[in-house]
């Protein structure tokens, strides 16, 4: 579903991604771990289409199409979703209007009829319940005045409403207590299906107890320095990222 080849990205003068290779098949869940500043969020935003980054080399194929050639909204309409590490507050736009605008924009792109009012309302009600959110939040401005945890839940609510094919969750677990973590994980797991792929960016093994990954990658210094199965996450939990130096040498030597 997603094929990233030798991806290099820079912001102004700094090269942040230095040759990422990653292949994610439909139905799979991949975890990307790594120290702060290693480029995890940059990778996530490059996939979503943020215009701050310049792609200097490499390619990204999504569903057989050139992802890097697509507009931001086109990517979303084609099923790419990014749950932000730092969700944006938008004063004066209600969550409800925003969600409906998003759903219908995506439907319009895919030549589908707009969602009926009643379908929208019942779908929203169901997803709110799934995430333990109060419906009064939907009349408030997007993320405005939301706590850290509420913002993260709201990201997952949007994901649940938009039903993407490729979801990238950028540190969705940070700022969540254990109960919230469980709820959010259930929300994510509800979306797991053979047609969908999920990339979970996280610092902590903890989240991966609930969202069990098929593969785990370590991103350091703008490159994927190790890949493995879920046991790699446990190893990282154990030893930290100290082995990375040998690891990257090993990669460089190979």
């Amino acid at each position, binding site marked *: 579903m997603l094929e990233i080849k030798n991806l290099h990205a820079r912001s102004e003068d700094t090269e942040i991604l230095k040759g990422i290779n990653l292949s994610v098949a439909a139905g799979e869940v991949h975890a990307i771990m790594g120290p702060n500043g290693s480029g995890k969020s940059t990778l996530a935003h490059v996939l*979503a*289409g*943020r*215009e701050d980054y310049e792609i200097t080399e490499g390619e990204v194929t999504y569903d057989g199409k050139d992802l890097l050639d697509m*507009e*931001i*909204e086109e*990517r*979303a*309409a084609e099923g790419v*979703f*990014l749950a*932000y590490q730092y*969700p*944006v507050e*938008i*004063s*004066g*736009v209600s969550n409800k*209007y*925003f969600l*409906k*605008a*998003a*759903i*219908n*924009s*995506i439907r319009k*792109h895919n030549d589908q009829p*707009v969602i009926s009012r009643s379908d929208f309302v019942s779908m929203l009600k169901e997803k709110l319940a799934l995430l333990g959110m109060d419906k009064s939040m939907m009349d408030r*401005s*997007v993320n405005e005045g939301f706590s850290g945890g509420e913002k993260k839940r709201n990201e997952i609510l*949007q994901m649940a409403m*938009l039903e993407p094919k490729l979801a990238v969750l950028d540190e969705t677990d940070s700022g969540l207590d254990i109960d919230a973590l469980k709820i959010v994980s259930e929300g994510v797991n509800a979306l797991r299906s053979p047609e969908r792929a999920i990339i979970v960016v996280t610092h902590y093994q903890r989240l991966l107890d609930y969202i069990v990954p098929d593969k785990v990658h370590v991103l350091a210094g703008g490159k994927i320095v190790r890949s493995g199965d879920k046991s790699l996450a446990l190893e990282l939990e154990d030893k930290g990222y100290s082995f990375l130096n040998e690891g990257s040498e090993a990669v460089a030597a190979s």
Partner: protein
Amino acid sequence: MIATENDAYQESFQQFQSEQSSTAPAWLAELRQTAMNRFTQLGIPTKRIEDWRFTNVKSLAAKPYRNVQSISLSGGEAEALLEKAKLDESFHRLVFVNGHFVSQWSTEHELPEGAVIGNLASAIREEAGDLQNRLSVETDDEAAAFIALNTAFVNDGAFVEIPDGVTVDHPIHLIFLSVEAGQTASHPRNVIRLGKGSRAAVVETYLGREGEGYFTNAITQVDLDETAFLDHHKLQHEQTESLHIASTHVDQKESSEFRSHYFSFGSLMARNEINLMLDGEQIESTLNGLYMPTGEQLMDCRTRIDHARPHCNTYELYKGILDDKAKGVFNGKIFVHQDAQKTDAKQSNQALLLSDDAVVNTKPQLEIYADDVKCTHGATIGELDENSLYYLRSRGVSKDLARKMLIFAFANDVVQGVEIPAVRQHLETILLSSHGLPDV
């Protein structure tokens, strides 16, 4: 040097005075003449005057405008405009065409005992309301040329007198239409007084026909006695070749409340001044404004608040949305006089620039002579927030709709401050059509 550009005004003034000579009382003829002399002395403001620095009014104001002495309501144009201006049938309505009251199009619903909602020309004839003293507006300031000009031509407008303790249930809608062909000028004067504890809402709508540019030069005077409350709205929808200059002068007594909602959409050049004199304690005033120039429009919004006495609160929020080559000016003066301890004055103005060619000049001007006061002001000028646009787009919302959502969101809090449903809905519709936010 100023003689030539004023010629047209001089000429139409002579004509106006002679036509009025048989009907106008002597004091009025004298008031007009004194004001005309002051206007001649001041001349049309140049950019050298600080308060006109960003608003080059010369070329528009120096056109040979014709003062309309009598109106013909044939042709249906005026009626069509009136239909556009109407907001709600339950409103009391006074209609003025080129500055003249049109009684057959005005509606006055049942009013409480003693309340008057009428026109100024009749009030002058009937010697009502102490007008001899009230019609002169101070023109000492070098920037006051158009105030003098309005007084020189003072003739008609709204006359609203609400006695003590009376609540006027329905809003009073004042509609000013420019209908006559050619380059016309009108100088409406509205005189509003609310007695102790009275409450009323006023909506002023300005609208004009398509075609050649015209000139509206309006003044509204408001007197609020103790604990009176006026909710004032102004909807400036003049045709986009026209010149609109207006000032609202409010005198507030103890514990009164004044709210102003100013919405500026039309005109080629629109300058609106609101002057508040807080002459009592425990006064509250709110000044909200939204101006949305596009194309080559210039909108100049000015407010001046004089905190003369202690314990008064004023809140001010002005927002501008500027597109194309539009220009905006915001000037907010707040004077806290020596006696005005415990003043709480908040001022905020925010401008959103939608194009690289749009400009806004904003100047908060606080002068504080008391030591125990809370005064804050903030000004922001920005573009649409890139992060917000990205966030919306990354959820599938098109760039165009994302922009509209953010523009609407920016303007909406000023609109939501309007409490009269028919006025608020009218504004929402305009926001939706000019910077359209579709039903999604």
